[in-house]
């Protein structure tokens, strides 16, 4: 019972029509680019591959693992597909997965389909792929770099996607951001850990059985500065936009006023940025923005830093398998 709530499939009715239209517009543009890109890179043999892997994502979401207290986690899969097929093919695969879930099984709405795909397929795939590529660049092409990158990427991808979901709900006036944001992001910070564990374990298994499959995409990943920039920009944009999108920013304040909490409010013991204001941004938003940006940068920076240090020892080109060269 808990899973449909925690999952990010937004049903119809929860996004206002203008917000839903923005989602569809984004989706159409991105699919257009993805179709051009995959046609250039992959060729016609990839069509059965992408179709069957879309069915794979669908089936893999049935493989649950018990987490705690009767809840169980399962894979969302965007990063796994991005690592194996590249990010543009992921756009197409995830569009088909989420589209069929909505059309056939009413898992997620049809007007909300645009943002459902953008959140779960594209944002989580792109952001995750950016982190993955960043770490891989830092660590050379070792397997350790691959799995650290995949773990951080899978986690951040899920978390940023849930932040985007909270943002869309708030922009639709469905849920005040001050409640939706911490609830969604908090829960998905845990779900993301499950995603990271399963993604890494699946990659380990694939690496042992068919190392050639990971070898071919490594060459694609090697020239990924554009991806790193794009993915991190998306992550930053979403955290930055969070406090601005709220149509009902003082939701919690009203609860507080009703309760007389306001009088209990105390001055903070210290001020990090006294009288700090940025034009167009309500002051209360600044902390959220700053926290978000710092969070994203810390994850990316830590990944890259760890990768550099750990990679220096292992970054020996002689160790590369021939297929990656």
């Amino acid at each position: 019972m808990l899973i449909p709530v925690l999952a990010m499939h937004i049903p119809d009715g929860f996004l206002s029509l203008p917000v839903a239209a923005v989602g569809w517009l984004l989706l159409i543009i991105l699919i257009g680019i993805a179709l051009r890109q995959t046609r250039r890179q992959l060729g016609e043999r990839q069509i059965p591959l992408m179709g069957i892997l879309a069915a794979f994502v669908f089936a893999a979401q049935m493989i649950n693992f018990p987490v705690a207290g009767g809840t169980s986690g399962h894979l969302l899969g965007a990063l796994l597909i991005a690592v194996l097929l590249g990010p543009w093919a992921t756009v197409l695969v995830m569009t088909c997965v989420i589209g069929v879930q909505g059309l056939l099984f009413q898992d997620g709405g049809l007007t909300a389909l645009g943002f459902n795909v953008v959140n779960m397929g594209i944002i989580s795939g792109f952001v995750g792929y950016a982190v993955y590529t960043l770490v891989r660049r830092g660590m050379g092409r070792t397997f350790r770099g691959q799995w650290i990158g995949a773990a951080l990427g899978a986690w951040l991808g899920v978390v940023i996607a849930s932040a985007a979901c909270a943002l869309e709900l708030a922009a639709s006036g469905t849920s005040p951001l001050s409640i939706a944001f911490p609830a969604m992001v908090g829960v998905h910070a845990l779900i993301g850990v499950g995603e990271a564990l399963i993604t890494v374990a699946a990659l380990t298994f694939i690496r042992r059985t068919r190392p050639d499959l990971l070898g071919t995409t490594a060459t694609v990943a090697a020239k990924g500065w554009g991806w790193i920039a794009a993915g991190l920009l998306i992550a930053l944009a979403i955290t930055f936009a969070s406090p601005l999108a709220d149509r009902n920013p003082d939701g919690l304040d009203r609860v507080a006023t009703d309760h007389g909490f306001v009088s209990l409010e105390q001055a903070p013991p210290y001020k990090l940025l006294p009288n700090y204001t940025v034009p167009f941004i309500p002051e209360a938003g600044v902390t959220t923005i700053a926290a978000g940006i710092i969070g994203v940068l810390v994850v990316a920076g830590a990944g890259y830093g760890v990768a550099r240090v750990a990679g220096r020892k292992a970054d020996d080109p002689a160790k590369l398998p021939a297929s990656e060269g």
Partner: protein
Amino acid sequence: MIRERYQAGDGYLYRLDARVKVVLTLLLIVGVMLTPERAWPAYPLLWALLGSLAVISRLSAWRLTRLGGLALPFTLAAAALPFTMPGHPLIALAGLTVSDTGLARFLSILLKSWLAVQAALLLALTTPFTDLLWALASLHLPETLIAIIGFMYRYLYTLSDEAQRLLRARASRSARLPDQRAGGGLIWRARSAGGMVGSLFLRSYERSERVYAAMLSRGYAGRIRSLDPLPLTGKALLDGALPICVLILIESAALLWWAK
């Protein structure tokens, strides 16, 4: 197990041209979403419209009504509204006040989600997937996407059976003694689930290689060939027009008179 919602039947929606049906469904959902928040009379009318579409398609309207609750768990996402939106206080509930505007918004979201799911169900319950795919193709969805969705649907059940076999194998190896905990910690469990995902991936990947080889040997040259779409008859359009007219009537009444 995944089970398709479509079941063979006969009736209005079953006979309606799939292209018209897709457009009708989308219009119904958009209509539901367009309904102003407080146009309360519109909701039972929309429900009656969906229900009568079900009845003339010989589906149970009650079953549709019940299945409409599929998305209700997500309502949690909007549950804070009655307490946080400013407005006239109505009732005090466990120390929190419920405002009228917040409650109205919350109820309208609930009703809209329930109605929209029913509209989507009408399409899913009465349309075989191949027809749906064909309709989407003739409504100009990109060819590549149609091909991918076609393959996905074709192997959906094969691969979910594979997943079921993996799950059964794990369950049969995870016997538990009454007084002992089974299995290792979280990491251990995640590793076994991840191994299953990896194994399923390889089976899928290798299947796609075999499928591609089989397609090549049958003369595949980069395009999936299909029959030309049938011409859209005037009768099909006329059949679809009636519910759309009713929808337009309800929505205009809602926008003009009830939205206060």
